[in-house]
């Protein structure tokens, strides 16, 4: 067999585990018999091992495309993480304070819904309670039996966003806002809530994916350590062979 040190294609395929598997097996057998080729392969493997130590700095990136509220998304530019997705929203400084307050209330309500809290609004007073934990089977049975019985509004579990919207709408109407502005604002707030919920779902999914990636990375690192350990032993053995054979190439 031709020396692998003289056959660059075969050497690279062997080093990077590409190409024909049968050819790689032939090369492995050749390496067991040919000290010069073994040394050449080991040197290239050592170079690759050293390359792995070249790490980029742990820069804080966090680029994001942000949407300007008055412009098409395609005209917007990426911003650093410091700005965040709310930048575009923050630019709308011409909006009245009550509009931003209304958005905050609705976002708060959406957060309550996601965090399993109960919000009741009665007689002008806002009451927030944590929802009970997982109900016992007996409680579930009772709930199922009474599910069809209409309950008073103040006893409804969870957040009734529609009720809050009606409340906000009436308050905004009372503050002399035009109906068109009110409608646009509510639409925008609803869109924000939808986006917020979607984003939470996606981020959770991404975190799950990152955990899986980290596990895989650790697995790869373990394999690499084992491989390097084996490589060192092979190296020592080859040195021994070279020494005992009088250092011939």
């Amino acid at each position, binding site marked *: 067999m031709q020396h692998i040190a003289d056959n660059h294609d075969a050497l690279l395929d062997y080093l990077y585990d590409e190409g024909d598997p049968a050819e790689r097996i032939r090369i492995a057998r050749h390496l067991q018999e040919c000290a010069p080729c073994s040394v050449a392969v080991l040197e290239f493997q050592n170079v690759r091992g*050293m390359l792995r130590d070249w790490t980029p700095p742990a*820069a804080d990136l966090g680029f*994001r495309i942000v949407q300007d509220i008055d412009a098409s998304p395609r005209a917007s530019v990426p911003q650093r993480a410091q700005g965040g997705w709310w930048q575009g929203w923050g630019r709308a400084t011409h909006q009245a304070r009550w509009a931003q307050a209304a958005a905050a209330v609705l976002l708060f309500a959406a957060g309550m819904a996601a965090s399993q809290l109960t919000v009741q609004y009665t007689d002008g007073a806002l009451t927030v309670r944590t929802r009970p934990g997982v109900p016992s089977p007996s409680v579930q049975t009772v709930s199922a039996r009474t599910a069809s019985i209409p309950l008073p509004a103040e006893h409804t579990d969870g957040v009734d966003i529609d009720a809050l919207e009606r409340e906000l709408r009436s308050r905004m109407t009372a503050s002399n806002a035009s109906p068109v502005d009110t409608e646009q604002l509510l639409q925008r707030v609803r869109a924000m809530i939808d986006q917020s919920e979607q984003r939470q779902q996606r981020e959770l999914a991404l975190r799950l994916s990152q955990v899986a990636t980290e596990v895989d990375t650790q697995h790869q690192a373990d394999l690499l350590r084992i491989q390097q350990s084996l490589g060192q032993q092979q190296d020592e053995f080859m040195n021994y062979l070279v020494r005992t054979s009088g250092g011939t190439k």
Partner: protein
Amino acid sequence: MTLAAALPMTPWTDEELVARSKTGDIDSFNQLVKRWERPIFALAYRTLGREEDARDVTQETFLRAFRALSGFKGDAKFSSWLYRIALNLCRDWIRKERRAPIVAVPEGVDVEHLAAERGPVETVEDLAARAELSREVARAMDYLPSEQRQAIILKEYHGLTFQEIADLMRCPLSTVKTRVYQGLSTLRKQLGEQMAPRRES
């Protein structure tokens, strides 16, 4: 629909996120940014050698990708498309700056940074040795022509196959292999002094 019911069991693929982004869903595109910003930054950093330059190129890469997304037909992988944009930007950056790609010891490769990712049995001496080795590698890479350096970076740090690199760099497969081989041979010589103590240890 409840949050749990809406939660996908697996994350969206690049292709799915690209399709959603094309409909104007900026959040989906930002998911792609989040997924790929670090590999693109690493590619730019190892090509250009300076953190600030790499950061700018990374940002410009995603901006260009976002603007050109409607023209992305999906013939290649999204990541390959991003890599190509980034490599072209790096090439333009080097031409514009009229300087060697790597002109200085890499920034940010210090013991503190390495300590964050050290293994449980790694001593401070090991960390210092790794930092020094990292600088040696950066210096050795500086000797390589940009085509060889890019081929090795794509192969070693991004795990592309030789054929994928050939497609990305728009050159024959044999050319890529030659570049990688020549680059590794040069590194073997440049890093020779480092290899002896490592082998002894």
